[in-house]
């Protein structure tokens, strides 16, 4: 009986199945399916889901980009329009604005948001009391678990023009602050500040783990040699976390076209479209709300292609400079 002569774990399992004739192949497949039925059954739901929700939409992207899609006619009966959609895309005045906003916001996020978690981690790491450390940690990464509507609610409480806490305070000091919620100049900073506040604690976790990996003896030796705290940071701490930092930095570059749909959607309004409308929100409005499927898909397609190139490049760069990539 096969059960007792276990051949599990050896790839020769397939070879042990008879493949003498053409019919033998079908027979072989049947035998394999029977032998490993459970494993295939376990994978089946995933396979079905992948096909329906990933392959199918990806396949549909091509006809959608090159056809003018009429909802009632469906995909097959909608006419081909060649490059018309793409042309409309690149000549649309909105597109320039949207692309600029997306990149600018992403870059801001990267430049201003990348370092606070590192700084926080280094500060926390140096805190003497273990208890304070834990409390600080718990408190700083709590915002990560709040949904964006909650964060927006807090923002409202602080700066809504009628009775926001900060606004009232400024008024009492004699200033007349403008309506910050719909202010063009303040929109991007608001976005970034709230995003940093939300994620700094959570981001610090990874760095703290990396910091914990640095041998304490290095620090002791340095102190004995007369190093000040800033020497220790520059010569021991920072080099110690360099691999993690490089890896995360390169990977962040890959996500540069995704500037935070959820957050922007919540924070923006028609008055701030000119500075805040990003690719995803624009696609949502033009594509779903105005049903301009061809154009919106073209944008989505453009974003996916660039995104794909970015992540491949980022992974290669990460492997080269940080020693490891995501795969």
């Amino acid at each position, binding site marked *: 009986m096969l059960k007792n002569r276990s051949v599990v774990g050896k790839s020769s399992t397939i070879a042990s199945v008879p493949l003498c004739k053409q019919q033998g192949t079908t027979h072989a497949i049947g035998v394999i399916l029977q032998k490993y039925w459970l494993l*295939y059954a376990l994978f089946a*739901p995933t*396979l079905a889901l992948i096909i329906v929700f990933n392959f199918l939409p990806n396949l549909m992207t091509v006809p959608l980009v090159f056809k003018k899609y009429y909802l009632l006619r469906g995909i097959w009966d909608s006419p081909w329009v060649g490059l018309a959609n793409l042309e409309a895309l690149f000549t649309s005045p909105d597109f320039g604005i949207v692309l600029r906003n997306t990149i600018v916001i992403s870059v801001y996020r990267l430049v201003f948001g990348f370092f606070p978690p590192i700084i926080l981690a280094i*500060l926390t790491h140096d805190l003497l009391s273990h208890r304070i450390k834990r409390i600080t940690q718990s408190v700083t990464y709590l915002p990560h*678990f709040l949904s964006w509507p909650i964060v927006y609610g807090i923002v409202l409480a602080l700066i809504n023009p009628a009775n926001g*806490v900060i606004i009232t305070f400024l008024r009492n000091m004699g200033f007349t602050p403008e309506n910050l919620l719909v202010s063009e100049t303040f929109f991007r900073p608001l976005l970034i500040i709230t995003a940093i506040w939300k994620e700094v604690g959570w981001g610090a976790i990874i760095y703290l783990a990396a910091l914990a990996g640095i041998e304490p003896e290095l620090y002791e030796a340095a102190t004995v040699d007369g190093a000040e705290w800033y020497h220790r940071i520059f010569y021991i701490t920072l080099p110690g976390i360099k691999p993690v930092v490089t890896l995360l930095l390169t990977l962040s570059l890959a996500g540069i076209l995704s500037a935070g749909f959820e957050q922007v959607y919540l924070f923006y309004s028609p008055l701030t479209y000119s500075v805040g409308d990003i690719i995803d929100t624009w696609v949502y409005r033009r594509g779903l709300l105005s049903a301009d499927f061809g154009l919106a898909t073209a944008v989505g397609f453009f*974003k*996916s292609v660039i995104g794909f190139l970015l992540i491949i490049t980022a992974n290669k760069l990460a492997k080269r400079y940080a020693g490891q990539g995501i795969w």
Partner: protein
Amino acid sequence: MISVALVCLLPCLYVVSISITPYAALSLEGGYALIPKHVSLEAYRTVLASGEIVNGFLVSVLRVLVGTSLHLAVCSAAGYALSKRYLPGSGLFIKLVLFTFLFVPGLIPYYLVVRSAGLLNTFWAYVIPSAAGAWSIFVFRQFFMELPPDLEEAARLDGATELDILVRVILPLSGPVYAALGLFNAVGHWNDYMTAVIYVPNPDLQPIANVLQKVLTQQSRVMASPDLQLDPSKLSISAWEQIPSLGIQMTVVVVSLIPILLVYPVLQKHFVKGMLTGAIKG
């Protein structure tokens, strides 16, 4: 140390802003002070009596329970199947899963597929499309591959079937992974509001995050309208009446916060562990 003070500023900011404002809900209009003179819980009564909020909670809880269980079941099954190197075709399957990780479909085609699948505007739109996640699958796969093979072989020698091995040997050992990934998924479901915005307009199926979002953004959308900017008196009375007062809004915020705050201290450690497992082992 200055650094300690800086680090502690962050928490104080949000604790103060939320806790004070709702309680000050019925202080006289004149600006909310940081520390209220009068405290009234009437706003809470109004909010909690509202069917919308209760419904929102129900939907969110249901979504977390069903969605997370489904996600864990599907992904762990796939992870287990793919962890067996001897499975014919597993190489191909792994590449397929990786493909989904790299090529995320655009919003429009995805929307059209969801629509064709009949999931639009149903509860299932929350749980089915997200049931299979490449990241979760890989984490499970990694975990199963790292279990000692002797366990499985010993079980086989004892005459156990594949199903037996799975249920009696592998599953009991997998507690930590399920817990960690399950938590992540649960939090994701609880906080997600975009899905309902795009795919589920039905007002009876709004998760609490969306109820909150609606309550909060009505005000800014109205305020942002060009008419109001030029001449507030032009705005009709009915529009004003539709905007919830700040007091109500903040109360809804607090009400949404409470579940997370309750759950958080208990599950903190697991959150962190889960994050590290995924990130460091890759």
